């Protein structure tokens, strides 16, 4: 039964939008202030039908306010919100074909699981028999069979999360908004639920917009991520691009760990850039995709791209690859199970973090504190950032 979920609302809305060559959701110059605080400051964004889009950012960055404007709980001061071509910016929540899954689920405590899920269907004036069918369908979809008569208080955290999801999906919204949907779950449950959410989204074809402060969660689930900072969209990109080609130092540091060396442009040699850094000597990087000025620049390297060896390269080929070789001494070791993070104090003055996969069970290869090492990385592993 669950395999044949009719894709009525979601699918037709999406089809209409796609036929018109338009995104399902278009946010145009949306801004919202609370008093003098500009919570959302001129955000424009297109989301296509069927996307799993994540709004990622630290608390207070405006991502939740943006989501609440999509749901209709806040009205934007400026800008338009087009859903399937229609401006819904000023529409009330109950007038929108959009549903939301709330952070703390907001299940109605006085209603059973069944009545919670049926709430939206009853409001839509659905026939009694159809409601029963749809509720059964949703209950099966989120695997809550046998719990229909329970009250929310009698459910575990994970079960409550499923009820919230079923309730939000029951009306087959064109757009499902999820506000930190996994924040209240413990780590193990969160991981399995991530997989289930993705699977569900693929099967239903509903467009998901999720708000999260957890970059790993966003990377795992979303097909595209919008990083927000101080009310603005800092970067919109696929997870891989966001991680490997962050547009600013702030994004690089917010999404994962990163080593950043500040410096100055020195010379350009073919596809290479030479940058003199303060803390790591002269580094050679690949020419960035977006042109940079010949001024102050930073070089960012992810810790897992930094390799360690006991001595420098011997062969000519090795020297070419390890063109960025930094001598240093192990200052700190952080064992994380799957990987170990070494903090290397560089002779040039700075420190660099190297994340090494523990591929062997016995630690014959492990380094010890105070050991002399060479930390190296290729020009392609470097990201050049305008400071």
């Amino acid at each position, binding site marked *: 039964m669950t395999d044949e979920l009719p894709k009525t609302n979601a699918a037709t809305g999406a089809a209409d939008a796609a036929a018109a060559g338009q995104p399902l959701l278009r946010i145009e110059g949306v801004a919202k202030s609370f008093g003098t605080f500009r919570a959302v400051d001129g955000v424009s964004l297109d989301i296509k039908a069927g996307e799993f889009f994540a709004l990622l950012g630290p608390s207070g960055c405006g991502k939740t306010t943006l989501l609440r404007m999509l*749901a*209709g*709980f806040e009205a934007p001061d400026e800008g338009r919100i087009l859903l399937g071509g229609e401006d819904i910016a000023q529409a*009330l*929540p*109950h007038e929108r074909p*959009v*549903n*939301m899954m*709330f*952070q*703390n689920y*907001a*299940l*109605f*405590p*006085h209603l059973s699981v069944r009545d919670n899920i049926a*709430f*939206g269907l009853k*409001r*839509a004036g659905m026939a009694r028999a159809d409601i029963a069918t749809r509720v059964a369908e949703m209950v099966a979809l989120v695997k809550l069979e046998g719990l229909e008569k329970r*009250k929310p*208080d*009698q459910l575990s955290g994970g079960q409550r999360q499923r009820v919230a999801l079923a*309730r*939000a999906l029951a*009306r087959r919204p064109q757009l499902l908004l999820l506000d930190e949907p996994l924040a209240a779950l413990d780590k193990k449950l969160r991981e399995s639920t991530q997989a289930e959410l993705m699977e569900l989204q693929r099967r239903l074809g509903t467009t998901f917009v999720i708000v999260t402060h957890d970059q790993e969660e966003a990377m795992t689930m979303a097909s595209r991520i919008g990083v927000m900072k101080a009310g603005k969209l800092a970067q919109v990109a696929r997870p891989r691009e966001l991680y490997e080609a962050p547009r600013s130092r702030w994004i690089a540091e917010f999404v994962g760990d990163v080593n950043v060396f500040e410096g100055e442009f020195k010379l350009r040699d073919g596809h290479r850039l030479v940058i003199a850094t303060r803390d790591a000597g002269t580094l050679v990087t690949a020419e960035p995709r977006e042109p940079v000025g010949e001024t102050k620049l930073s070089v960012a390297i992810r810790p897992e791209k930094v390799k360690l060896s006991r001595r420098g390269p011997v062969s000519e080929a090795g020297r070419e690859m390890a063109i960025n070789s930094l001598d240093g001494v192990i200052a700190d070791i952080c064992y994380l199970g799957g990987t170990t993070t070494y903090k290397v104090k560089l002779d040039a003055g700075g420190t660099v973090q190297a994340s090494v996969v523990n591929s062997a069970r016995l630690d014959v290869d492990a380094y010890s504190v105070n050991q002399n090492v060479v930390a190296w990385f290729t020009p392609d592993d470097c990201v050049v950032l305008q400071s």
Partner: protein
Amino acid sequence: MSSRRIFARPARFAAIAPYLWMMLFFLVPFAFVLKISLSQTAIAQPPYDPVFDLTAGWEALKTALAALSIDNFRLLISDDIYVFAYVRSLTVAVTATALLLLIGYPIAYGMARLPRSWQAVAMVLVIVPFWTSFLIRIYAWINILQHDGLLNQILLALHLVSQPVVWLSTDSAMYIGIVYSYLPFMILPLYATLAKMEPALEEAAGDLGAPPWQVFWLVTFPLSLPGVGAGVLLCFIPIVGEFVIPDLLAGSNALMIGQTLWLEFFTNKDWPVASAAAIVLLVVLLVPLLLYERLQKRQLEQGR
């Protein structure tokens, strides 16, 4: 082990203390009143008979016990005055409580939706009347409601009436007084439940397609029922036994049970009948209390 013993004794005392309190200040006086209600009036000091005298010996006590009767309760049932007084008390209490709920709910709801900093101010405004003596406030109402009082002056000035309206010694005056006096007792428990209700619940209802009035009836109101119950009880019970407000503001043609009781006690010096009336009042009031408790228990069992 030793630390447990140290804590065990005060804990046990803490558990017993409320019962001791109830024994001393409720059950013992109740026993006195119950005993007086089974006695007969007498021109004596105290004005009833028999009087238990524990020093007079066993035989005297037995005679005294034999002299007790339920005649006073028979009188209460057979005489229309008392039956009417009970009916009137209940009618007034039901009407006034309904009015209080109708007026108090929107106020409490509005308070709970104010910005946090304003809620404290609103709370003080609700409580502020308590800083003036209750009696003074009721006398102030007499002033406002009298023939050339403030209310009539305003009504005349606004040309809403052409003649001064008679307010004093009417039921309207009494209801104004009761609603005014009891409003905080209705607002505060309602406000407490409404303020702690998660705002996301109302948003969720709206999100699922409920227009504002449905959000209220399907989510807000059902979830505020514990507050409604507490407010209704806090008002209903004392209003049934209310004496001062009807005595000062209402006419004297239909008395509430509190006034009847006062008459029996002080004017007629009939302590036994007054006591019997008090006992019946207590029983009448126990019914809604027990019902409320059963309801709460059921909710608790269902909810948890």
